[in-house]
């Protein structure tokens, strides 16, 4: 197994996430795609640590911080989403046009 294998899987996962974030209509679908992108970045960090800097643990530590921020983001994002859903009664992003006036 070379580093290129892991980087290829991570970049494909990231691109699937980008595709989902660009095309999903449901806002929870967009959040799920963003989670996929976070995971692709974490795979990259772990792979770079394993193959290029096996003596340190900076890659795993940074990935842990990413996980923390992702967890906080999901919690706040879903709470905001519930609040928006209560006001607009829809979960589709093209209907979120309150700021249009």
């Amino acid at each position, binding site marked *: 197994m070379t580093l290129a294998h892991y980087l*290829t899987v991570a*970049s494909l996962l990231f691109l699937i996430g980008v595709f989902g974030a660009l095309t999903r*209509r449901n806002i*929870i679908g967009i959040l*799920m795609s963003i989670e996929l992108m976070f995971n692709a970045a974490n795979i990259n960090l772990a792979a770079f640590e*394993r*193959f290029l800097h096996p003596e340190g643990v900076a890659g795993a530590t940074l990935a842990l911080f990413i996980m*923390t921020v992702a967890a906080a983001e999901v919690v706040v994002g*879903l709470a905001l989403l519930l609040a928006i859903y209560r006001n607009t009664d829809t979960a589709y992003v093209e209907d979120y046009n309150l700021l249009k006036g």
Partner: protein
Amino acid sequence: MIEHIVFYSLSTVVLVAAVCVVTMRNTVHSSLFLGLSLAGVAGLFAALGADFLFAAQVMVYVSGIAVLIMFSVMLLGRASDLHLRQVNEQWMAAVLICTVSSAGLLKIARAYCGTLAPSAPTPDTRAIGRLFMGEWLLPFELASLVLTAALLGAVFFSRSEASR
């Protein structure tokens, strides 16, 4: 040999489940596939020898975030959603963007074609703990502050308007 089998089966699971997440019409199904994909990523961490990351991935992502997303899908879902298209009109442009970026990303990955792992992986939980309690103490404490703020924010935003 066994390393190859593990890697290819895990990456197949991750990528197929990820494609299902972005293409499934039923959001409940796609959130279940999200859990599968995150579990596959945990397996990839184990294959990379990152033991603490594997445990954190299982605890935070698979049993935390995936379950939370499943809850909100079920709170927000409606039966009529199943008949609606879940993909917007710009999917052709999105495919184009992904193709163009995949060319660049795979070119970068090809630069590391010959990079093999220098040594067998060693357990790194102890080293991570030392780093968190020593050199990276400030970011570690800031992370706990961020989590507290997220908790308070979630409680604040999800209260109903009347009780605010």
